[in-house]
């Protein structure tokens, strides 16, 4: 049969994903700093995504080069963040003296 690679225990991965999802939701409501919560959430998301890629998509059992193809988008996305982020300096500077936005409903 075509499945030469070893099959991981899918149910173990499933329970990990389910438990980590519950942990993610719990983290949102933990009494911690926003930055720490953000870092934890990003870490948990990356861990879950890695599990899906490694075991469900069998990346762990593929060649190293295919792994490099798969990881490239993450590098590009990370690069994009640093390309886009400087925008925030510009806009904050320009709007620093404006009145704070009202909470009135937007008109359509």
């Amino acid at each position, binding site marked *: 049969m075509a499945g030469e690679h070893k*099959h991981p225990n*899918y149910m173990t991965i499933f329970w990990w*994903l389910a438990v980590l999802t519950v942990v993610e939701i719990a983290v949102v409501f933990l009494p911690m700093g926003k930055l720490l919560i953000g870092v934890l959430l*990003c870490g948990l998301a990356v861990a879950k995504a890695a599990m899906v890629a490694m075991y*469900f*998509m069998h990346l762990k059992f593929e060649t190293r080069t295919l792994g490099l193809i798969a990881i490239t988008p993450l590098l590009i996305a990370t690069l*994009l*963040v640093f390309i886009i982020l400087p925008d925030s300096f510009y806009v*904050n500077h320009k*709007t620093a003296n404006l009145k704070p936005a009202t909470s009135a409903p937007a008109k359509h």
Partner: protein
Amino acid sequence: MTAQAATTSHHAVEPAETPLTPESWGKLGMWIFLAGDAVGFGALLAAYGGMRATSADWPVPYDVLGINLTAAMTFLLICSSVTMVKALEWLGKGDRGKCKMFLFFTALGGAIFVSLQAYEWTHLIHAGLHINGNPWGASLFGTSFFVVTGFHGLHVTAGVIYLLAVLGVVARRPDPAASYNVVEIVGLYWHFVDLVWIMVFTFMYLL
């Protein structure tokens, strides 16, 4: 050599060795497509982060959107990933019937996911979240929400159609080995959609 024989003994008939995915070129093709698609989602999420960082009145997403339903949707998508690997596993064991059943469950999970998303969107639109404005703050909050979750929902919808088409392939080919590759490749797409949702759920709802 017929197409049937080409699929069953794919190792021998590949025009040239592909060292990345020895099983088939199709699998490599899907991986490259997914890498490109991932850049699309990466760009959307990076832009979302940029817009949020530049905004002074970005609403707290989980207060506005609510995460109970979405958490259930996340769980549903994880479950559908499991039924997907089960479909491939059963096909590997030569059981086309079980494979078709699990492919159907996977498509069903996707269909329920899209339905719940439609319900969620309807609910939020009635509450005032529009693509061009909302009562809670930055108008781009609604814009980015609908664009990113919509783009993902479109992927799920396409995945459901793709899964049902592959179910048809398994049904038409008497030899289980003849459709193993096709099922493995649709699996890659489906798990990718699950993977992207993990990211979208974290960045658009939880953070």
